[in-house]
């Protein structure tokens, strides 16, 4: 993709962020400021040269960019006053990148008025290095400064949500203690529903069953849930023969300590973000995000800390996996806003983007006040030499040019304006950053990092119950197959939860346990419900939370399971490319393109596709199960297991992590018997298990 216009803009904007103040035009917003930006120490001549430099760039940009894009500020590049900026926040003049005259000719840096296109690659690289250094040195608000911003923020009472009181403060308890409390709480909360349902439905058991699933089912379940693959026959055997009574909890601890735990959940969250990317280029953040999160999850970094890093992210996308939400939306700050709210609070605000929410309390202005936390970030190619290296950074200067950005509305400010629905071309109303839960409003004109840093603290603050509820509800739903709220990312004060007291009990404990994700996994896996036998999703008129609900495996889980069943390192899904969610060319990613799905969608709404069925029926796995090919997985099983019963058992263990039932053994044996070729008969059996619904689901 060659996008010369954008390239040039990137460079212009990079220069712009350095804090240079040019043509200081007071605007209505910045009259009467307390902290005027210090004057640049550069001489007037230098300023003049630099201004010419920018003018030229603007001219070129005008030619290169689509004429449909008009620079909305006639004055051209103009640094808007930044009222809250402390002098320290400004770039020291000595660090000003690409300042004409600063360029030492010996180093080959640009001369005043130089056309950046005429610079050599080496010169551009040097320029870029300087800009990077300068940006890195830009002072950032400290933790305590951010806390004081939040603490001193005024609360606008009518914007505070009355139904969103903070969760109760409780003393932290252990997973087993909390799991027992949940069991009891669920019994209590579900009792009226069971009573009411009893006469009407014949299919629902009238009493809460506390039966536990068998060991094999449990083991495959925790393996798939925690580390994203099914257990090997050896792991299954070891577990079955372990006589200890606490082995179920012990295996969870062991799995949580494995690296695969972080990898599995990093892939999960990658999908949460990437399935909503509004631009294919956002895919470049997929891998960095996954690597970053895998490390954080394995370190067991508290969830609030992770969330804060995503909200206040900056830097090169390739090196900072926490920039993924910005990259997935290409920095379109209204989209970023709705995603931050959806992912971390489970609250979907975006309907209020254009009108007051039809079913929820959110007013249109509340969405836009939330968006006002995010307008000063920018996501763009870092340099013209590498269009695939994107950066998320603060831009406290204005304006930003963009083809039809902001849904075609004019974008010429680093403040957020709520558009006027009756006059879409008008600038609209300037919004002040106000958090819709606590009603806290930031003072005018804070910098990008101050706003987002404050937002990060407000999102994850203990006075906001939705932060804990959202992730607890999500993980509960992933592990038990049914959420308290559904869909899992559409919760909030106007939604009705199943067993809300149980959700709050777990959420308050999660908060008291310092947002410890491993603690949460341990707790949920120890509940009664988690360990129940598997069932299909209930009918709408049946009582919730009666069984652990089967779920279609995510693409990554299926891939891991398939490769391990086939005893190979990778399976290609040839031709099954260019599907949804593509972000790489390795076989796992391609496979995900075919078999993956958006994990935020209600699980029984996820449908399988014909290309998926075709890939497993007729695809490459048939090569691996060719019993006549020496060295194939099937040939080796048949060689090592001359007894047919043993061979059948082995194939069941490999594919479904369990032994065949009596009935299944009989059917299999019959099939082998009526076939003249043993290897052919076993190929059929292997094929049938790989294509079975059970193989594709976690029970």
């Amino acid at each position, binding site marked *: *993709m*060659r*996008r*010369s*216009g*954008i390239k040039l803009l990137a460079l212009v904007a990079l220069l712009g962020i350095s804090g240079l103040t040019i043509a200081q035009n007071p605007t209505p917003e910045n009259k009467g400021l307390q902290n005027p930006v210090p004057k640049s120490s550069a001489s007037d001549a230098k300023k003049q040269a630099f201004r010419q430099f920018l003018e030229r760039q603007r001219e070129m940009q005008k030619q*290169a*960019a*689509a004429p*449909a*894009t008009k620079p909305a500020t006639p004055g051209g590049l103009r640094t808007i006053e930044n009222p809250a900026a402390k002098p320290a926040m400004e770039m020291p003049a000595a660090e000003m990148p690409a300042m004409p005259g600063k360029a030492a000719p010996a180093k080959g840096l640009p001369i005043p008025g130089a056309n950046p296109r005429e610079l050599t690659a080496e010169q551009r690289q040097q320029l870029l290095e300087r800009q990077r250094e300068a940006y890195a040195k830009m002072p950032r608000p400290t933790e305590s400064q951010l806390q004081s911003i939040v603490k001193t923020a005024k609360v606008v009472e009518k914007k505070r949500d009355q139904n969103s009181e903070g969760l109760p403060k409780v003393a932290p308890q252990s997973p087993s203690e909390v799991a027992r409390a949940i069991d009891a709480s669920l019994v209590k909360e579900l009792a009226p529903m069971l009573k009411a349902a009893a006469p009407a439905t014949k299919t629902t058991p009238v009493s809460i069953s506390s039966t536990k699933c068998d060991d094999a089912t449990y083991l495959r379940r925790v393996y798939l849930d925690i580390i994203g693959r099914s257990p090997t026959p050896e792991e299954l055997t070891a577990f079955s023969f372990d006589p200890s009574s606490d082995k179920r909890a012990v295996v969870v601890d062991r799995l949580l300590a494995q690296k695969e735990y972080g990898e599995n959940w990093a892939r999960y969250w990658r999908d949460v973000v990437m399935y909503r*990317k*509004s*631009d*294919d280029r956002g895919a470049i953040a997929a891998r960095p995000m996954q690597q970053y999160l895998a490390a954080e999850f394995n370190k067991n970094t508290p969830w609030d800390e992770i969330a804060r890093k995503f909200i206040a992210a900056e830097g090169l996308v390739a090196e900072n996996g926490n920039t993924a939400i910005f990259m997935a939306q290409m920095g379109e700050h209204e989209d970023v806003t709705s995603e931050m709210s*959806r992912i971390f609070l489970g609250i979907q605000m975006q*309907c209020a983007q254009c009108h007051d929410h039809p079913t929820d309390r959110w007013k249109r202005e509340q969405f836009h006040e939330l968006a006002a936390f995010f307008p000063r970030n920018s996501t763009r190619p870092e340099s013209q030499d590498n269009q695939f290296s994107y950066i998320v950074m603060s831009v406290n200067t204005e304006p930003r040019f963009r*083809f*039809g950005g902001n*849904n*075609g509305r004019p974008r010429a400010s680093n403040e957020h304006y709520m558009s006027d629905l009756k006059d879409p071309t008008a600038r609209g109303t300037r919004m002040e950053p106000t958090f819709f839960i606590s009603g806290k409003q930031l003072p005018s004109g804070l910098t990008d990092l101050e706003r987002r840093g404050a937002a990060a603290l407000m999102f994850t603050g203990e006075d906001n119950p939705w932060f804990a509820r959202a992730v607890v509800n999500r993980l509960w739903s992933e592990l038990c197959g049914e959420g308290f709220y*559904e*869909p899992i990312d559409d919760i909030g004060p106007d939604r*009705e939860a199943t067993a809300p007291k149980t959700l709050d009990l777990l959420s308050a404990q999660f908060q008291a346990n310092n947002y410890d994700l491993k603690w949460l996994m341990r707790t949920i896996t120890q509940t009664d419900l988690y360990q129940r*036998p*598997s*069932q*299909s*999703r209930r*009918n*709408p*008129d049946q009582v919730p939370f009666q069984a652990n609900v089967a779920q279609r495996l995510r693409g990554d889980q299926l891939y891991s399971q398939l490769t391990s069943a086939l005893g190979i390192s990778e399976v290609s899904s040839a*031709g099954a*490319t260019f*599907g949804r969610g*593509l972000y790489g060319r390795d076989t796992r990613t391609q496979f995900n393109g075919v078999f993956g*799905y958006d994990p935020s969608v*209600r699980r*029984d709404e996820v*449908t*399988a*596709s*014909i*290309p998926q*069925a*075709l*890939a497993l*029926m*007729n695809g490459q796995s*048939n090569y691996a199960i060719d019993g006549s090919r020496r060295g194939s997985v099937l040939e080796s099983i048949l060689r090592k297991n001359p007894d047919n019963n043993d061979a059948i058992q082995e194939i069941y263990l490999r594919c479904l992590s369990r032994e065949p039932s009596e009935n*299944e053994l009989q*059917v299999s044996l019959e099939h082998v018997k009526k076939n003249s070729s043993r290897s052919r008969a076993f190929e*059929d*059996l292997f*094929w*049938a298990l790989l294509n*079975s*619904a*059970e193989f594709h*689901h976690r029970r």
Partner: protein
Amino acid sequence: MSLQLHRCVSARTTRDGFVSRRDFLRGISTTALAAGALTWTDMMTAKADELRKQGRACILLYMQGGASQFETFSPLPGHANGGETKAIDTNVAGIQIAEHFPEMAKTADLYTIIRSMTSKEGSHPRASYLLHTGYLPTASIKHPSIGSITAHEIADPTSELPSYVRVGGRGNFATGGFLGVKYDPFDIANATLPPVNSKPTTDNTRYRERLDLLDRLQSDFARTNPAEANDQKQLYGQASRMILSPEMKAFDLNQESSKSREAYGRSSFGSGCLLARRLVEAGVPFVEVVSGNWDTHDDNYNRVKGLAGQVDKPMAALLRDLKERGRLDDTMVVWMGEFGRTPTINPRGGRDHYPRVFTTWIAGGGVKGGRVLGKTDRSGSAPEERPVTVADFLQTICHSLKIDAAKQNMSAIGRPIKIVDGGKPVLELFS
């Protein structure tokens, strides 16, 4: 519809504003079916008859990257912006197109050129999404592409072939979106090969035996997890019916005479166009054939000349063929890219992205050919007459396919989304 079904459905709609797919099917099976009020198959069959009569289809020829209007169907001889590209006469007096399209010049009576397409979106991914869905991409809603919409709205549900086939396409901008993976394009990477994984690795008898074994082995699982087992059985049934279907021969270009192969040319785009015609004849309502590399930021003249050489003959062959076979009246052929290219030539001899005014053409599907709609100003920089927006354009396709563009489908978050938001069909094309 039975009362009970209604109750069950409305119970869901009040909370989420939409009915969950499985709940709805369950509702049907447990209440209405038992009561004998209606059957799913009855409904489907009734609908199918109506649709078969309709027989409407669309072939989208997509020039990925954004074809230059000046070097294709809107040359600008005599103006600096026209560059070195010459215009040639066509078989319709008064219509000229670029010299690189001699075959299309001979069939100009079959299509109508729209020279006043206009949009605001100049980035590839966003514009591709816009031209395929009519919407700009957002985080919260994934919109279905026009091909998926067609499959959803007018495909014959009893057909054994996929209803939206894409040949040579790539990218995530054309998916079933909130309609689901079922409406994703069925991708064919190479038109001369059978669809990927569509050939059983065993003979048909053994294949059926395998399916039967699979079925018997699933009975235990089906007892605890009937929904999962059932879904899988239906999907495998559908997939198997498809690949074992005699209709699959529609994908086999070897069934064509060598004369016909030569008429289209044996290039990948030519083979794709021929495949499109075969599929449409077999009842597939939407086929997209993609030609790539139109993003000519440098060496524009030579590159477009080369690209034109790849598409000119196949496109003309397709139009003639459909005409001769009497299929052009109910098959709309649409030619478009995601935007046009700048009137001015950049220093590298290229043209950059330009959505403000660009060119498309439409043939068949009720559209009268041999005309030009709209015009630009003298410099080719702005639409001057009859601007056609992306919404107008998609409305026009819907009009031809008899799809109600104002119909609202429910997105996953329970927000109703119009098939096309705004715009009006360009009715003068049809008269």
